């Protein structure tokens, strides 16, 4: 074949190589693109700020208690009207400059201190339970999706079994025995908040993983059929490399989204379980047990009931909106 013919046959490929300033070619990863989308969504950003404020507040609270700014257990009996059933003397729950949200009826403890410190415990329980559920759910999901066959079937039935189990009932029925059992492995007695909190985290987490396993398994099933997994096998990549370097980076979006949607579920679950008497008991405050206590005064001292309810509602809604926003941002095809 002559030279001219070979030139004829070949298309001009010069346009493939762009002239680009080498400094400017740093690629934007899918993560960075998702963050860009997230930032443009106002509602998500607002909910993110709210969640951030709660988180920072939760982190600061123990410090503030230590320096004496928050006094979640100091009683101010002088602010209570003993003749009227220990209701605060002034309006709005006895609000004053030193107690902006008032004081607790009956004990006279600063409401702001209890709620602020309570956020720390509530978020810690929700976070720990979410982590337990996410880790178990993700690992079992990956194994189930990848192994297939009998392993997949066994995990699938385990998911069904766990989902059909009456977990609230079990939490209640086994709570005293469970807490005592937990206390054996932990420092402190069974009445400590540590043992109670640990039991709550354990049960919430151990019953929370099945939906995540199902989600992750589905994702793995689609990803493992993608050709880049075959390409990795073709190089002789090890199973570990395929799981953790090829598949896992493609899973963190659903993991993150289910995390932000599990958190609010567990925050409200903590509140509900407090009402049923499970979990951390007073005097250690949680949003749940403060709310439970306030229900007794919902008519006599409405503001004491109002604040914890509002705080729980705000954090749950914000976390949910954050999760929705992340889901939209991480999945470009979900654009409306």
């Amino acid at each position, binding site marked *: 074949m002559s030279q001219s013919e070979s030139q004829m046959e070949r298309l001009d490929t010069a346009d493939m*190589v762009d002239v680009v300033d080498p400094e400017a070619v740093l*690629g934007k*990863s899918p993560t960075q693109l998702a963050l860009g989308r997230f930032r443009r969504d106002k509602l998500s950003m607002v909910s993110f700020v709210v969640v951030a404020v709660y988180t920072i507040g939760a982190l600061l609270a123990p410090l503030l208690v230590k320096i004496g700014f928050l006094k979640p257990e100091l009683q101010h009996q002088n602010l209570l009207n003993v003749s009227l059933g220990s209701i605060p003397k002034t309006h709005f729950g006895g609000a004053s400059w030193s107690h902006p949200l008032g004081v607790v009826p009956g004990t006279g403890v600063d409401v702001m201190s209890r709620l602020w410190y309570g956020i720390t415990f509530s978020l810690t329980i929700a976070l720990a339970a979410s982590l337990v559920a996410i880790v178990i759910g993700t690992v079992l999901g990956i194994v189930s999706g990848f192994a297939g066959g009998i392993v997949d079937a066994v995990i699938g039935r385990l998911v069904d079994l766990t989902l059909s189990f009456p977990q609230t009932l079990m939490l209640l029925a086994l709570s005293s025995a469970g807490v005592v059992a937990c206390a054996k492995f932990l420092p402190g007695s069974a009445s400590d908040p540590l043992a109670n909190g640990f039991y709550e985290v354990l049960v919430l987490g151990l019953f929370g993983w099945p939906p995540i396993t199902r989600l992750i398994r589905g994702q793995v099933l689609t990803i493992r059929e993608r050709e880049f997994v075959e390409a990795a096998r073709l190089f002789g990549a090890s199973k570990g490399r395929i799981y953790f370097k090829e598949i896992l980076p493609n899973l963190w979006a659903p993991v993150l989204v289910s995390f932000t949607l599990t958190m609010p579920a567990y925050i409200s679950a903590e509140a509900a379980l407090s009402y049923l008497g499970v979990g951390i008991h007073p005097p250690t405050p949680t949003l749940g047990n403060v709310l439970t206590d306030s229900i007794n005064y919902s008519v006599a001292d409405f503001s004491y009931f109002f604040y914890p309810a509002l705080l729980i509602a705000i954090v749950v809604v914000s976390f949910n909106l954050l999760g929705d926003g992340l889901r939209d941002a991480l999945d470009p095809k979900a654009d409306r």
Partner: protein
Amino acid sequence: MSHIDVAVPDPDQSAVLVQVPDGTGNAASQLDPNARPVLTVKDLQMYFPVHSGGIIRRTVGHVQAVDGVSFQVPAGGSVGLVGESGCGKSTTGRLITRLYKPTAGSINFEGTEIAEMSQRQLMPLRREIQMIFQDPATSLNPRHTVGAIVGAPLLIHNVLPKDKVLPRVQELLEIVGLNPEHYNRYPHEFSGGQRQRIGIARALTLQPKLLVADEPVSALDVSIQAQVINLLQDVQKEFGIGFLFIAHDLAIVRHFCPEVAVMYLGKIVEIADRETLYTRAHHPYTQALLSAVPDVKQAAIGGRRERIRLTGDVPSPINPPSGCRFRTRCWLAQDICAQVEPPLMQIGPRHKVACHFAGELGKHPTTPVTTSPAVAAAASDPGFASTWFEVTTGQPTGG
């Protein structure tokens, strides 16, 4: 191979013709009868078990995806594998790269039998056999940079110290015509054709001796297909890589492969060198496939090729027809076709056909071209048979 009858295309026309490149002519894609085979496949078989539903899974049958396929790929040469969807061509490719373990048969790569090897034993051979995937959108991990994707084989096989990986990646990107500075970009920032180039760079990373290209251009725009095919030809010439080129586009296979095998329902029905297959195909299925190729040049001169329309669907590979698998759709089928399976018979120097009526050319349309006075006149020319396919201006050139 005196088949240098590529019509000199005028530059305006070449843009139209890229989708049906006028094959031949290219030194690297010529058939060298003396080339030693890099890959010899013999009686390759892949049966996928079909399970019943329910709790107790019983095997109720097998999908006979590949059933007794044999061919050779010469070192530095290329063999095309064509057939319609579901005929087992991609499965064959994945068997040769040992992504699947064959049910039976032998795959001999440079004297080593790899059909039965374990994944661990295959590890050193992974460097020698590589694959180019069909869909560049899914064959690149969206969460990895191009540098990580192309460099991964080097790290897995530990062939280069870590600080040498990046220069090598950039070198490879340059070979495939990408900007080497783009190594830290992500796949989604590239166009389809560029992504396929990344896939090619990855396949070349370990300097393989055999590349299985599984429909490497079928997911690309027609204008990009030519560029990628050109690139593959350059790569083949430069590195002397043997190609198994899987495709359903006959024109592209014709351009790329001096030897072509046609598959139907898991079996090779005809295998021949390029000229023979495209001009004197004996198997009715091959003829039907060829008649379905649109021909711009014929249309330009008012000619029209007789279109062979196959009726019916491809039978299920779980329960293929007895005897000849093509008989249910074949217009030549006789009783014998249902009873006796036609063997792949040698009917020419490099021409094998699996058809009971392969020799009886009279029963076949000798030339699928009809009408057009110019062509009809040329039909009496003995050289016509080899040129009907590439008439450009109504003046067929001699073969």
